[in-house]
């Protein structure tokens, strides 16, 4: 049982780390603000979320897990809200999305 839990938690931790890496690469590589936001939102939800889930499995049934659960709850709400607010602010600031004109 302990081994299964360990393997599962490591899968979650590594998965979260990979998503964080993907998000970071996306922020650097994507062409404009809106696509970069898209990359950032992956970091907040999937990346940090999976890392927290992995840590919860390591914590077992304890106070640490409850605290991690609270952090998870906060992350899952505040991350997307912050990204949404940023996108909204950019729209209000009349920032045009980057469009490839060769296609149109």
């Amino acid at each position, binding site marked *: 049982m302990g081994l299964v839990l360990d393997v599962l938690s490591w899968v979650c931790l590594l998965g979260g780390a990979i998503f964080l890496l993907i998000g970071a690469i996306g922020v650097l590589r994507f062409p404009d603000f809106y696509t970069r936001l898209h990359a950032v939102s992956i970091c907040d939800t999937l990346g940090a979320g999976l890392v927290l889930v992995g840590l919860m499995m390591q914590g077992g049934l304890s106070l640490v897990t409850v605290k991690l659960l609270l952090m998870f709850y906060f992350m899952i*709400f*505040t991350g997307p*809200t912050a990204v949404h607010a940023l996108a909204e602010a950019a729209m209000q600031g009349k920032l045009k999305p980057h469009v490839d004109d060769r296609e149109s």
Partner: protein
Amino acid sequence: MEYLIDIVLLGLLMITGFAIVRMRSLLAAAMLTSIYSLLSASLFVVLDAVDVALTEAAIGAGISTILLLAAVALTTDEEKTPRHTPLLPLVVVIATGAALIYGTLDMPHYGDPEAPVHRYVAPTYLHDTPGEIGVPNVVTSVLASYRGYDTLGEVTVIFTAGAGVLALLGYRTRRRNSQGPGNRKLVVLRVIAKLFFPLILLFALYVLLHGDYGPGGGFQAGVIFATGFILYALAFGLGNAQRVIPHQLLRIMMAVGVLIYAAVGIESMLLGGKFLEYRVLADDPVTGQHLGIMLIELGVGITVAAVMLIIYYGFVSRLHSGDM
């Protein structure tokens, strides 16, 4: 392993510092200072200074960023290019930096048990706290009890700062646009703010009352409390926030906190002790200490929260409608 975290954090701190200096956009510089504070808070956690980390995260990364952003919104976003040559400032900075680094050569090594700071009063505090004060968090016992005078001075400084900002910025009452900006576009933000507002206030109370047992206390609690209301004001507009806490009330609360602190001191004098000698407050000395610490932490929290909100109100009431 801990070395690695230290190096990464300090390296990031240095990069952020250089980025702030190089950045011409003040808005971006304000955001970078927030990151800088968050990194320092993480460093404090690594150094096991959790109380300081909590303060740094709440004040540095939270409130001061919002105040900086408000100041940027009031002035301009672009840094002016300096007219004079950078040669003289560079010489001054290099000389000062060299002197500071030279000064560190005489400092004891990190974690050295023979360092003067560990041989002076710290052992007494660590040894006497369980018996005399009976709170697990020694930081709180030093801050609130052994060093009560200093903390009273700090609260007075915060009060003076608030009064100074009030005198400089003043406060503009505005009738129109009390509903706040944007209306329809802020739906998501408003729902989430409504969801988190009570939780933030609850957490502030927890930090205030749990300060004896874990990291926290009046300063942190006051700032977190103010953050909750600033979030509310950001989402729903200043007018609605003022319906909950009016400016007049804040001005009174700002003084009430300091007065509660001083009154605890005078009360202990009236009961036959010295100024801020809490053990005379109750029949049992340890209970007296608990009571005294709780009361002065409450006073600190009230003053800090009121001052933070007054500074925020002062900035935002000067902005044009709908900016923040």
